[in-house]
Each structure stands twice: as structure tokens, then as C-alpha cells.
């Protein structure tokens, strides 16, 4: 809480902007395309594991990455077929 916040919301969105840019640029400066390669390989591996148990449409699998600060999370969204899995 700084003293400026007593006088309305001065500079609030600007500090959000600065923070977002710092995170983004840190990743972009370090980016050598390895994220995309990693995601691709993970996707294939995960698909293979899931495919052992259920039939899945490769197109209905979504992988989402979220980089915030020091942490990168990976979300996997697999649409299971309506029919009962074996």
C-alpha cells in the first residue's frame, strides 16, 4: 500500500502494464522456440498414454501453457468420447 493509493487509483493500471511487459520480455528474450518443441513432444506423449485407454480424436486435445513470473503451467484438456470408455 503506498501513499498514492490514498488519492484514488493513480497509476494502478500502469503498474500492471509494467509487470506484464517484464514477464513477457523476459520470456521473449530467452525464447529460442524450445517451448513450442516441448509442447509438441509432450502432446504426442500424452496422447499416446491416453490412447491406450480411450479412443480420442487428436483434434480434441488442447494444451495450454501459462507463463506467469517464474512459473510455467501446462493445462491439458482432453475431450473424452461420449461412449463408455473400455
Amino acid at each position, binding site marked *: 500500500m503506498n501513499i498514492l493509493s490514498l488519492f484514488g487509483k493513480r497509476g494502478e493500471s500502469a503498474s500492471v502494464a509494467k509487470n506484464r511487459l517484464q514477464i*513477457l520480455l523476459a520470456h521473449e528474450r530467452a525464447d529460442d522456440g524450445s517451448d513450442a518443441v516441448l509442447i*509438441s513432444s509432450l502432446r504426442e506423449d500424452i496422447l499416446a498414454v491416453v490412447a491406450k485407454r480411450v479412443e480420442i480424436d487428436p483434434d480434441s486435445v488442447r494444451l495450454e501453457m501459462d507463463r506467469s513470473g517464474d512459473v510455467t503451467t501446462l493445462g491439458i484438456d482432453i475431450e473424452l468420447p461420449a461412449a463408455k470408455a473400455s
Partner: protein
Amino acid sequence: MSNATVVVVTSGKGGVGKTTTTAAIASALAKEGYQVCAIDFDVGLRNLDLIMGAERRVVFDLVNVVRGEASIKQALVRDKKLNNLYLLPASQTRDKDALTEEGVEAVITELRGYFDYVICDSPAGIERGATLAMRHADEAIIVSNPEVSSVRDCDRIIGLLDAKTKIAEDGGRMPKHLMITRYDTDRAKTGDMLATDDVVDILSVPLIGVVPESKDVLKASNVGLPVTLSDENSPPAKAYMEATRRLLGENIPVTIPEEKKSLFGKLFKGRAA
């Protein structure tokens, strides 16, 4: 199976508000319930992801898709707030020559099948990226500031829309809409700025909206929200919502939403500057 309307947002000149407009219109359409995809064609200098607040979640991009390194579905980033709004980001690491005409055509054709609206954010300039962004459009939104160089560049872009697009080559005529951004009513009144009628007269393109100069646009970009989502009651959000209804075919008169001035502001109006 949908058959999307493809809209290009273009201007020639940089910095006039193409990306802001793309994000605002795409989210306004999504809010109306349509399935919407926004594509960033500014390869090498992508920014639509940042304006839409999706920058941390980009994995694949348009160039990956064009080159067959990722499928479209893998590359689409879903909006945090609206689950019927998607972004296809541009590549940040490659240059505009990474896009091929056939590749872009294939991408647009596939997207037409999934969405109701595909909004293409054109890069500035009149080179490859800009011509590819407009190539398969069904309609064009031309963004201009009420300022001489911006209007001149729009005129050049109108020439390209009528010559280099698929519609034009097939003998058709590209439907065009003029969006005037960063408009200052007071300065236009005092004759210090081109008025909307002046710009419409010069370009002969029907007006779809007038977005007032507003601090809300910068604020929305700071936090990564399209201005139509960050504060629905702000003047620019209202202007974009209105423009979206016109894009959807509603026949409503163009208004210029204004900032609410404080008494203090009113008293001192005209004294500053």
C-alpha cells in the same frame, strides 16, 4: 458448419488503432454470442496477444500453422473471459516473408468452417503482410485518425482493397467501413482537427463509428483487456459496441460518445493548451 464472414482491419499508417479496433470489435461480436477468431498478421511485431491479454498463453502461431508445424486448433488461444473468442497470434521471431499466399488461404478457409466472424488485424504498410491480411476478406474496416497523413494512407489502402483482393479480382467490390479513431470533438469544433464529415467526404467510405480520444484505451491496454470488455460504459467502448451493431447490419445513426466532464473541466474548457 459455419461460414464465417472475414473482416480485415487495415489503415496503411501505423499507430492509428488497428489492433485496438480488432480486439474491441472481436470481443464485442463475441459478447453478442458469435463465434469469433481474431488473427494477428503483423508477423515479427505481434501485439494483438498483448492487447487481448493472451501473451502468456501463446505457444504456436500463424507461421507455425502456415508451415504445417502445428494445427490451427493447437495454435488458437481461447480468451480468458469469453469462451467463444479465440486468437491466432502472429509469430514474433520470424519475418513477414514467412507467410505464403497458399498457406494463408488454407488457414482462412479452415477458419471459415469453425467461426461466424474472422477478424484480420493487418500490419501497417502496404507490403506482403498487409496485402495477405486483406486478400481473403469479405469486408474491410478502414481505421483513420482525423489527420492528413492517416487519411492519405487510407486512400492508398482503399486502392489496394479494390485491386489486390480476391473479391476485386473476381470482379466484385469490397464492402468498406470507415472507423475514425482518436477523435477530439472540441478540436474538430474549433476547426483545429478534421471533422468526421471531412474524412468521409475525402475517402467516400461510409462511416461505421467514431471513437473519441480517450484515456480508457491506454488503461485497457495496460491490463490486457479489449476496451469493450474493460469498461463497457467508457466512451470508446460505447463507440465500438455501436460500430459492431452496424457491422452486424443494424441501421443506427453514428454518435460520438463523450467523456463526462467534471464541473472543473467545464469551467476551464478551452483555457488549457
